[in-house]
């Protein structure tokens, strides 16, 4: 029997999210999924889950969760000053949350979306092959809605054979900044804009407005001039990171909860590797755009993939775990402290030998 995580307080917005709902866009079903896919993926690596396992996306903080049984947990993405029973928690490191412990996210430090991952993932009922919550269409999560106080999220079965890392090298971690530089591939309707309009787009600073949400980042800044054909096109398919410009000349960057089709001209499309930076850019953040080729951004994507998949999941040096041994009627609590990296076959044998040593000592004392 696996445990549950109870939502004591969802804060501003807490959602069950995974890699997204693919394969149904032709029926009008939005992809949704984690805004910061990289943070979700690394979090799942840290608890030894499949990349597609579901976690909780916590926006801005004020959220509290209680763990029913001892659970391996990782927190990634934004640093929202998380604590475990009041003790500050590191981000991008897995840790054991004891039964009954409370994980609290108080408020934003850097970035705005944190991810809470548990070993085994959250086993909410999938809809169309995904657990991702899409509020507008009522799909995913527990009931198609944001998490509510009292919601109990079942934890899934872990793959016991999977590797668990506890840390990743800090060189791989993103540093979320309120000033982001985004690489962009020219969009399929760049010619809908005048040369001056395109120049405005790549040379200006835009700021993220507070009307931005999971559907898109709405930006404020210099107006992008159309070439005279107007800003509207015959509606066609859109992707994450597509930068649409409606008639007011201000860009909208489509994000996870985007609709499947759009009718505004797309001046550019954000490089996949830069999407996490936008996912973590809150209102007031500034955005600058840098023009790239498809070949450039695909090379960036391959490098990123290589870096992540080659990342040594650094085992933490020492791990402590409480255990209770019962010998006859005598229960004893022991704290086992061991070097996790030594947990090879050899290390395991050594650990067993030491535990047996404790038994021997206890047996000897009982005899006396």
């Amino acid at each position, binding site marked *: 029997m696996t445990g549950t995580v109870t939502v004591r307080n969802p804060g501003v917005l807490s959602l069950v999210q995974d890699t997204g709902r693919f394969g149904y866009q032709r029926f009008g079903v939005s992809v949704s999924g984690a805004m910061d896919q990289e943070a979700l993926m690394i979090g799942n690596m840290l608890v030894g889950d499949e990349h597609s396992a579901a976690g909780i996306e916590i926006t801005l903080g004020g959220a509290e969760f209680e763990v029913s049984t001892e659970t391996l947990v990782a927190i990634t993405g934004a640093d929202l000053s998380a604590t475990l029973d009041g003790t500050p928690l590191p981000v991008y490191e897995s840790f054991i949350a004891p039964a009954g412990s409370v994980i609290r996210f108080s408020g934003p430090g850097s970035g705005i979306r944190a991810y809470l991952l548990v070993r085994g993932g959250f086993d909410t009922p999938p809809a169309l092959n995904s657990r991702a919550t899409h509020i507008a269409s009522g799909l995913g999560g527990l009931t198609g809605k944001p998490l509510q106080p009292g919601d109990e999220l079942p934890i899934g079965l872990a793959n016991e054979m999977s590797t668990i890392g506890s840390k990743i090298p800090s060189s791989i971690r993103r540093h979320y900044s309120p000033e982001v530089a985004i690489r962009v591939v020219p969009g399929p309707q760049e010619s809908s804009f005048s040369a001056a309009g395109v120049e405005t787009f790549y040379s200006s600073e835009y700021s993220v407005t507070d009307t931005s949400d999971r559907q898109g980042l709405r930006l404020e800044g210099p107006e992008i001039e159309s070439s005279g054909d107007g800003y509207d096109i015959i509606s066609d398919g859109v992707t994450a990171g597509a930068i649409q410009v409606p008639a007011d000349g201000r860009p909208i960057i489509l994000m996870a909860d985007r*609709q499947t089709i759009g009718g505004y001209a797309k001046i550019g499309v954000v490089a996949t590797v830069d999407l996490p930076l936008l996912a973590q850019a809150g209102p007031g953040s500034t955005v600058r755009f840098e023009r790239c080729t498809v070949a450039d951004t695909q090379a960036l994507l391959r490098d990123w993939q290589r870096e992540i998949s080659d990342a040594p999941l650094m085992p933490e040096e020492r791990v402590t775990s409480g255990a209770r041994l019962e010998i006859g009627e005598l229960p004893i609590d022991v704290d086992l402290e061991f070097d996790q990296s030594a947990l090879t076959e050899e290390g395991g044998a050594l650990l067993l030998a030491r535990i047996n040593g404790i038994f021997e000592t206890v047996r000897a004392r009982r005899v006396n």
Partner: protein
Amino acid sequence: MGDTGESQIKSGQGYPVLKPVGDSAICIEFGDEINDRVNDLVYSAADALNARSPSWLRELVPTYRSLLVHYDALAADYDEVRSDLLGLAASDSAAETSSSGGARQVFELPTVYGGEFGPDLDAVASHAGLDSEDVVRIHSSIAYRVYMIGFAPGFPYLGGMDQSIATPRLATPRTRVPAGSVGIAESQTGVYPAASPGGWQLIGQTPVQLFDAQAQPPSVLQPGHFVKFVPVDESEFQRIQAEVANGQYRVAHSEFAS
């Protein structure tokens, strides 16, 4: 919605056009018009690509006049995907013929027109200078083509409405349009699969559930299908609604040769 000679020339010359949409998708444009011939090209290309299912293919999103091809950029780069797609386009004339020559499926949506089910029927009629009975007769006499599905799960973009009943959107959108509402916006007609805000002129309502996440496929209507609205009265609406709730209702459909 018929083809004009001009649009045929326009959509024939220089197409298809392939454009990158970021680092993980390519858009294939088959024209820059909304018409049946261009839309047929989109769906025959989608069928051909699905049949080959190249290893880099992630998902296809067909729309009025273009096909968005999502691909795995770690499995193949832009140049490789582009050359595969161009190869496909070159060998695609057979697929086009078979697709456009096949039988068409017409789905019948029983619909109550007017009253509380279609609060804007009278407004549409007065805008058209017609009786509301005429609007119902005209609206229910046509088999509408499903050009694409989007905006919301199962929302069909229907083409072919008679221009005589075209009506602008409401000046102030409703905050809640009931599921199954049949509406008109300019020269388009459509059905809201789920309750949502909306600005279309509502002329009726169907009890049919167009989208069900538990069903496979989840959408009753598929692009390339045709839709006919069949006028029913309120008691028939309620009978069908009960069948829908029990999971017993099947949407009537027939085939006709195109």
